[in-house]
């Protein structure tokens, strides 16, 4: 009896240890979480977007959630998000290239210190960062930003209450947090530029600016595409940069983002079907913009490396 179960145990062990079975056991946690935490909710998001969901009763209502999405409020959210994406992309793609190129040049002393200082903001939680920015850009004359403006002879600004300054706050917060990370991406890529190229450019008498545009930039192209892609996607996902300034309700929706609208409708007002419809629209927008951007930067071309 004991012998038999031992033999059975052995067979089970052998089966579990065979090279055919082991990889499946090792990847099983991923398969389970993929099905439960990605595949199911992805399908469910589409289904929910056609439903009215009330506790205990759920009914299909066709396209009416999508019809409701085409409202002035969503348009405001879309407009805010799009401007935010454009501004953060312009700043967070280009400025780090310049900083990385300068940091990489021999002219810069204490480069390690500069890198570390640029990087530290990315460690701060968005809530802590938001707290500090709220206090720096407070509406009183005594808050730091207004003090600087008054010192230069300007008028104090009610930062959190005007549409342009609201956008400024969100963009500056995001730029401050992610600048250092993007600088690191570019610095890593700059290590791969063959130094001979700069030497031969020197022999040809190229200026620093020419070297930057004709040697550095072309070599950074793959990483520029990468940084652009993640900046655009993260921009369309924006929520917290607005939440830290106005929670979920900014005056006149000046800080409303698409994901913020989804949170407000889906979670706070418990209208999950409508929230899901907003989510689907956001996904479609991200998808279209990413394709256009990747096509534009030539990422689909083969053998470009």
């Amino acid at each position, binding site marked *: 009896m004991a012998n038999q179960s031992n033999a059975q145990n052995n067979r089970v062990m052998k089966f579990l240890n065979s090279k055919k079975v082991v990889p499946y056991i090792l990847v099983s946690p991923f398969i389970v979480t993929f099905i439960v935490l990605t595949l199911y909710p992805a399908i469910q998001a589409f289904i929910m977007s056609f439903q009215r969901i009330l506790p205990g009763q759920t009914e299909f209502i066709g396209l009416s959630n999508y019809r409701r999405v085409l409202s002035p409020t969503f348009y405001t959210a879309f407009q805010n998000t799009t401007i935010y994406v454009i501004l953060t992309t312009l700043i967070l793609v280009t400025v780090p290239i310049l900083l990385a190129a300068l940091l990489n040049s021999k002219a810069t002393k204490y480069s390690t210190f500069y890198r570390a200082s640029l990087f530290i903001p990315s460690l701060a939680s968005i*809530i802590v960062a938001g707290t500090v920015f709220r206090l*720096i850009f407070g509406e009183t004359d005594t*808050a730091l930003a207004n003090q600087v403006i008054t010192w230069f002879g300007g008028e104090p600004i009610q930062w959190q209450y005007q549409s342009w300054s609201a956008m400024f706050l969100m963009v500056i917060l995001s730029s401050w947090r992610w600048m250092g990370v993007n600088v690191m991406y570019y610095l890593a890529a700059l290590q791969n530029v063959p130094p001979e190229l700069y030497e031969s450019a020197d022999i040809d008498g190229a200026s620093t600016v020419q070297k930057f545009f004709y040697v550095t930039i072309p070599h950074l192209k793959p990483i520029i595409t990468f940084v652009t892609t993640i900046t655009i996607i993260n921009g369309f*996902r924006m929520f917290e940069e607005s939440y830290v300034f106005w929670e979920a309700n900014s005056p006149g929706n000046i800080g409303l983002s698409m994901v913020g609208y989804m949170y407000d409708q889906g979670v706070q007002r418990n209208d999950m079907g409508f929230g899901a419809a907003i989510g689907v629209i956001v996904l479609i927008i991200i998808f279209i913009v990413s394709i256009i951007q990747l096509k534009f930067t030539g990422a689909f071309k083969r053998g470009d490396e």
Partner: protein
Amino acid sequence: MEKQRSFFKKLFINILFVIISFLALLPIISLLVSSFRPSSELMRQGISLDINWAGMNLDNYEFIFTQAPEYWQWYMNSLIITGLTIVLSLFFSSMVGYALAVYDFKGRNVIFLMVIMILMIPFEILMLPLYQLFIDLNLIDTYFGIMLPLIVAPIAVFFFRQYALGLPTELMDAARIDGSTEYGIFFKIMMPLMLPSFAAMAILQGLSSWNNFLWPLLIIRSNDMFTLPVGLASLLTPYGNNYDILISGSVITILPIILLFIAFQKYFVSGLTVGGVKG
């Protein structure tokens, strides 16, 4: 002449970077300085240049250490959740990444494609269905519910796979001849070789868990389950009656991270820039 020009160029670049570094650090420095100011003054003035240096004191810290048990409850929650997330996600993600790299099996490419796919779907889209699912499963207001979406992280799976591709597979054959099981090979031989990748991923996962906000905001209902970001955000009201905890609490939240960064800079940078690893 040429030498003089290059000297001024150097000087200019270094001055520029001193200014940039100062601006980057300014919010952190001003947070630190403000934490010693009376909270009523801070609330009235905001972060300001007119600092009353003589009026600085440790009151905010005294208050948080003696009269704010809820803050320490949040701190505890964040520590437990972050610790468990790091251990579990590194364990599972390394297993998956390793299997994808060293074994040749049916469906391997499909699974790798799924990893890439999850990387591209924004979490926010899945958020509402997941929220509803977690309500149905009674996972609201539990540590497990907060952690679950981070436990098998596609970015970590991807990173571990890239790293494991470079492992010497000859060692595996030698170990098999010595009678080691496949699991023994992974845990005793390969995992130690993957240690540098574990450090970078521990930092990435730890930081995303420590700073995670939107998902915990949805899933947590009661004050004593709050994580630090959700708890601090609850104090961020226009009425500003909690600025003492908010400001000293913010410092105590980010200071350990900055100290860890200074100690382990290299791993932080590779952890946070992992998306750029080449295939």
